[in-house]
């Protein structure tokens, strides 16, 4: 569901009002409610061929979330996403300067399967790192950045849980396949099916993979069939992710094959609350075409002014230098410097003593 300001600023206000009032009423009827908020304030400078393409401050994201624990076996969550945007305009053509979306809204039924749940509603896309990507290097993860998955959330049903003794996680999901931002004219009549497995054979070592398949009569969503494999090594201050992504999309008779990979090491200096990050991506949008790929190099650091714990705010400065280098030797790289102040807060979860 996506209500932008161009559909009427009044509409957004009415809608936000209804949501807020509904949640206040829900909170008054027992159970436990936890509120959560996060704000990303970002400066971006983008350069190409010596020319400045972008140099601006913006409120990239504000998230407001209400989580309500109705009983031990039933909980629900609603998250609103707000952002600066001059793309939506009023009737006079002036930009509103903001947008509002529902990021997620679901009910989680626990206890129906051992150590697992059934989740119904607008929820995470369980493919690769899309569902647990926390934007530590500011940039989106490989699956989302290159539009393999149309968004971090989608409408659908999923079932999944934990492998006993902490040996990993699993999830199966059926969603619309268009992402949470898509509620427009083209209605895809075919569902997308996803499966995800993470296995942790020994502490600190994770291997896993995901698969997504979708067929559709619509030109925009004719076919999508992707798989990804990932490995993580984490011990002490070191945390390294590696991911391979491949698949096909387009006309089923002559699909376009794509592939890419990402290496993402992160080092945490616990004594001074600093993380040093690096990332290296390669993405080939058509494996039959030569020199159409793209490399991404990222280096940066995150500094925690304060860490967020349950019931306490957290403030973090993120920095990143990003170079996107086309594979073709004729093309010039694009360089980006991003600085982001990110802060969040949450109310304590009752009974967590």
């Amino acid at each position, binding site marked *: 569901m996506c209500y932008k300001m161009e559909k009427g600023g009044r509409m957004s206000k009415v809608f936000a009002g209804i949501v807020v009032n509904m949640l206040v009423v829900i909170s008054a009827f027992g159970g436990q409610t936890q509120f959560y908020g996060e704000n990303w304030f970002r400066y971006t400078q983008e350069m190409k061929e010596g020319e400045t393409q972008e140099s601006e401050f913006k409120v990239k994201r504000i998230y407001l979330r209400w989580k309500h624990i109705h009983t031990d076996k039933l909980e629900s969550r609603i998250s609103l996403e707000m952002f600066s945007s001059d793309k939506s305009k009023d009737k006079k053509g002036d930009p509103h300067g903001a947008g509002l979306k529902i990021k997620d809204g679901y009910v989680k039924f626990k206890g129906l399967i051992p150590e697992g749940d059934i989740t119904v509603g607008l929820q995470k896309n369980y493919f690769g790192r899309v569902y647990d990507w926390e934007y530590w290097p500011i940039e989106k993860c490989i699956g989302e950045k290159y539009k393999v998955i149309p968004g971090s959330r989608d409408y659908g049903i999923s079932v999944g849980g934990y492998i006993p003794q902490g040996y990993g996680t699993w999830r199966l999901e059926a969603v619309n396949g268009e992402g949470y931002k898509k509620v427009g004219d083209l209605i895809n009549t075919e569902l997308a099916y996803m499966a995800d497995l993470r296995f942790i054979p020994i*502490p600190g070592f994770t291997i896993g993979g995901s698969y997504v398949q979708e067929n559709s009569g619509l030109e925009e969503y004719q076919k999508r069939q992707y798989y990804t494999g990932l490995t993580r090594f*984490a011990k002490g201050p070191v945390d390294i992710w590696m991911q391979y992504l491949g698949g096909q999309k387009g006309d089923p008779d002559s699909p376009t094959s794509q592939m890419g990979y990402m290496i993402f090491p992160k080092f945490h200096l616990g004594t001074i609350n600093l993380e040093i990050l690096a990332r290296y991506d390669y993405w080939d949008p058509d494996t039959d075409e030569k020199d159409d790929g793209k490399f991404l190099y990222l*280096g940066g650091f995150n500094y925690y002014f304060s860490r967020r714990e349950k019931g306490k705010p957290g403030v973090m400065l993120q920095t990143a230098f990003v170079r996107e280098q086309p594979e073709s030797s004729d093309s010039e790289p694009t360089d980006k410097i991003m600085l982001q102040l990110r802060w969040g807060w949450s109310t304590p*979860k009752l009974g967590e003593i």
Partner: protein
Amino acid sequence: MLKFKKLGLLILIASFVTVYSSEARKRPNTLTITGSTTVLPIAQRAAEEFMESRPKVNISVRGGGSGVGIAALIDGTCDISDASRPIKTKEITTCRSKGINPVGTVIAKDGIAIIVHPSNSVKELSLDQLKAIYAGEISKWSEVGGRTKPIVAISRDVASGTFEVFKKLVLKGDKTKADALMLASNKAVATAVVGAPDAIGYVGIGYLSSDVKSLVIEGVTPTNETVVSGEYKIARPLFMYTDGKPKGLAKEFIDFILSKEGQKIVENVGFVPIK
């Protein structure tokens, strides 16, 4: 391009060196303990006595809740995580994915005694009767063999660990009846029961006194012995979690709590020693 790659490689190597030299700077004589507010008094008192006999050691103890403690263990911001419940599968999974192997050591037990006014003729209840009283299905003492008076149910507030245990072990996840009196401490519950002849309440076993009468539950009297043996059902273990088996200063501290001296501290702050 080549220059950029060399620079990147240099940054990576420098990062590794910086990280490991910074990790090596961690002082061996410091211990950080975070977690359950139920376990907090044990950890605090034990830390005070432990530091008295080892002047070079510095132990920092803070609460926040079991979940906060386990999160701190995962983040590497504490050495020992206190917990008044066993670690959840979700938490074990997060720990393992981040290279942490959570190992819990039981350092004490927490028994919850059901108390009434000494003048109350009721001596014994079953768990089902107790649940029915707190759920509002039994409202008079005569329904459980007592006088014809309405029962005044006194509970701990929902933020307390004692309430969590009572909810799990007695109410089996059901809600407490709406007119139950919710009080903020064990002492407040005991005081309220002393002043109300028709009241029923529950407190940690260390808060029992001659001013109140503790009830026999399912045929078992709440004592340190019946809690440790597992015969008395309204009880829970208290844990200290470490990354792997306790070692170094963390092991010394946990061994101290498990010693005769440490278990005396456990008893003095109102919990049940396990040794």
